[in-house]
């Protein structure tokens, strides 16, 4: 060792083997390109699949479930009648699962799994492009923003999102954005038509116009598959149902109307932005999407700053294209009647890409001083809001609802980690730690959603217990007749075929000698006409909420067909 080396050599105390700064453990990760792909797969599975199919069905999802358990056709059937707003793709997928599940035991999963898996595939599809372009951090951030959003956690049609049709639209757009207007894009457009009719095609067409690229133009390959599918579907519908049914399905979205009124109460404003995207006032659509994209979607606002926008022109402008397409979809959903559901998923994807671009800019240190301040401000806002929720939630879960105590303890620890991470971010001025704090919030949100929100919602607002109470009185193949349409969520929870009667007298037909079950309001039972088949009251069910009406399950005299043979009514019918 020469004199110079001696001068710069570290002074090591022979009595100490290690110094504090020498004790740092450096773990060398493999190249991001190697592990980000599998990490995205695991991320999606953890966020979307865990607890992904345990919620009771409501609204549009319940309609799909009922349609899946009826005969398959060009339109879905609910209560044995064609529904113009139920297109065949989702019932077909659910029907596949329905046939695979135990007879009479099909649960919410037959509807929710296809939706969850579609959301998962849509995320992977887009993140894969960024991964291929070498933007591994952006791909990972997109994973957190998309999979960690409340919309994906719910993936429920009752919130106005249709992820199955959305997957087809996103796949077609992905093809247009990353490749060209080819057969594959056309085939995805055709699938989108079968999922939601013409509104998804309108969203794709708008994207083509907004992109304005020669290779992503209206080509024969793009147009022919959906047009041929539409023609085939029309003839199929005319053959199976009627031309009027096909026309009704095509016109249905236009009958939805658009409301532009302003609420006049605080609750009204709150309701406006938390309502499902396909309902309520049209001007609130962007705000609803922001709520659906929580917790990371607000970071998309950072793109208003120049330094965050700088990353948009990398990777051939793919991120910028997604944002342009999303803006077009958002406008389309707000101004075209009936297009809100079709526009929601691509718009949410664009919002997630925008949020991911901002997060990536923060992670890589590209933000200027104003951008850094804005990022810290947003992260602080998010963490403060989450901490307030955590404090109240921990009290609720560990002390009030002690049934949820294990969840409450983990929830509290997660909240502490979030606060500590942001604290450290402020101390060290590290944007990476602030990003990490925001990401941990999505993990905690997932925990609270799957562990508390869904079971609580099922218990307090789901129709499951009431429906199962009614359903247990009949075997799976026994039909229950009603006089008017029931809420679809109750009909689904009953788990039996439900048929509408045009009049009480029709209950006698066809004359097979079989006993028929009727579910009536109490007043309907009391005023059952004498000219209709006589009824025997089986059970009465109180409604779950005080403003509902009691239901009476009754049946006519006759034989009951069971797997063990035919049984004859033991008690003569009294009315």
């Amino acid at each position, binding site marked *: 060792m020469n004199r110079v080396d001696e001068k710069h050599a570290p002074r090591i105390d022979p009595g100490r083997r290690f110094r504090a700064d020498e004790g740092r453990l450096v773990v060398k990760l493999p190249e991001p390109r190697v592990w980000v792909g599998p990490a995205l797969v695991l991320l999606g599975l953890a966020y979307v699949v865990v607890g992904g199919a345990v919620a009771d069905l409501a609204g549009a999802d319940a309609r799909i479930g009922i349609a899946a358990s009826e005969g398959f056709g060009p339109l879905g059937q609910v209560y044995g009648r064609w529904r113009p707003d139920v297109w065949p793709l989702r019932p077909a997928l659910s029907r596949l699962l329905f046939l695979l599940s135990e007879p009479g035991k099909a649960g919410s999963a037959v509807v929710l799994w296809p939706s969850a898996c579609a959301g998962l595939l849509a995320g992977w599809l887009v993140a894969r492009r960024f991964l291929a372009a070498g933007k591994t951090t952006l791909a990972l951030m997109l994973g957190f923003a998309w999979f960690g959003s409340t919309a994906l956690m719910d993936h429920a049609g009752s919130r106005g999102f249709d992820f199955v049709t959305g997957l087809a639209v996103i796949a077609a757009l992905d093809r247009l954005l990353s490749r060209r207007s080819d057969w594959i894009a056309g085939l995805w457009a055709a699938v989108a038509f079968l999922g939601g009719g013409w509104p998804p095609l309108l969203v794709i067409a708008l994207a083509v116009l907004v992109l304005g690229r020669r290779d992503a133009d209206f080509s024969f390959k793009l147009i022919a598959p959906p047009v041929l599918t539409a023609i085939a579907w029309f003839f199929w519908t005319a053959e199976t149902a009627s031309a009027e049914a096909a026309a009704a399905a095509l016109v249905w979205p236009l009958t939805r109307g658009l409301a532009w009124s302003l609420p006049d109460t605080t609750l009204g404003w709150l309701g406006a932005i938390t309502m499902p995207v396909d309902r309520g006032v049209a001007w609130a659509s962007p705000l609803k999407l922001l709520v659906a994209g929580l917790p990371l979607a607000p970071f998309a606002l950072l793109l208003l700053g120049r330094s965050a926008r700088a990353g948009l022109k990398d990777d051939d402008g793919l991120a910028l294209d997604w944002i342009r397409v999303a803006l077009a979809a958002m406008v389309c959903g707000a101004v075209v009647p009936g297009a809100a559901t079709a526009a929601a998923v691509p718009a949410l994807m664009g919002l997630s890409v925008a949020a991911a671009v901002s997060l990536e800019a923060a992670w890589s240190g590209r933000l200027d001083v104003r951008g850094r301040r804005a990022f810290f401000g947003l992260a602080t806002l998010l963490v403060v809001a989450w901490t307030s929720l955590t404090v109240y939630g921990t*009290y609720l879960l560990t*002390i*009030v*609802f*002690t*049934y949820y105590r294990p969840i409450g303890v983990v929830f509290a620890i997660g909240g502490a980690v979030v606060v500590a991470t942001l604290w450290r971010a402020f*101390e060290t001025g590290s944007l990476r730690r602030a990003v990490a704090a925001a990401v941990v919030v999505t993990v905690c949100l997932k925990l609270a959603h799957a562990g508390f929100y869904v079971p609580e919602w099922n*218990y307090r607002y789901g129709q*499951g*217990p*009431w429906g*199962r*109470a*009614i359903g*247990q*009185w*009949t*075997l799976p193949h026994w039909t229950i007749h009603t006089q008017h349409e029931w809420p679809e969520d109750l009909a689904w929870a009953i788990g039996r075929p439900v048929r509408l009667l045009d009049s009480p007298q029709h209950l006698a037909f066809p004359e097979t000698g079989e006993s028929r079950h009727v579910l009536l309001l109490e007043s309907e039972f009391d005023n059952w006409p004498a000219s209709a088949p006589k009824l025997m009251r*089986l*059970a*009465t*069910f*109180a409604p*779950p*909420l*005080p403003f509902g009406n009691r239901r009476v399950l009754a049946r006519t005299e006759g*034989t*009951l067909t*069971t*797997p*063990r*043979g*035919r*049984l*004859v*009514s*033991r008690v003569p019918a009294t009315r």
Partner: protein
Amino acid sequence: MRKILLGAILAAGAAVAGWMAVLDRQNRLRWDHWDVVKPGGLYRSGQLPGDQFAEAVRRYGLKTVVNFQLPGPEMHEERALARSLNVGFVNLPMPGDGFGREEQFRKVLEVVDDPGRRPVLVHCARGTCRTGSAVALYRFERDGWTIDDVAAEARRQTYREGWIPGYIYAMATNKPDSDLHAPVTIDERNAPGELDPTPLPEAAADEPR
């Protein structure tokens, strides 16, 4: 400075947690096992201190309280308080494991069914077993719930044993007729000279049973 601040936060957190634990032991932090069974109709809880009971009466407009406690100071205190608040009081003393007599649980239904006596609060000491039994019978008889759903609700109220739903189900009259499951009992002695066996269900299809 950082260490002092962190230490202060931790110390404050520990103090708050300890204080909350003490309050929780005294049932001051929440209404013990309070829950809504049917909004405007039936509520459930554990034994509430006087001020919480009065607040529940005010907030939910309770008209009747059903107390399952054995006679003692708590019961007498609540009875006097209910009288002062013009709230009906029903005492159905039963053992703490929830295995009360059927007529006691039927009395709860009678009270709940009377529109003039609703909303009703049912409670025992902790709000799990005796209260759980009464609510279970309400679920079976009035809501027609399945035994699985009633058991799930009992677990939500931290009842973990699993016996009460079955015990109460045996009392319920509003449950699917046994015809549904075709419980045909075949009991053939097949003694010499007996030539008239019970026909199988398929053969008996056209004959009224």
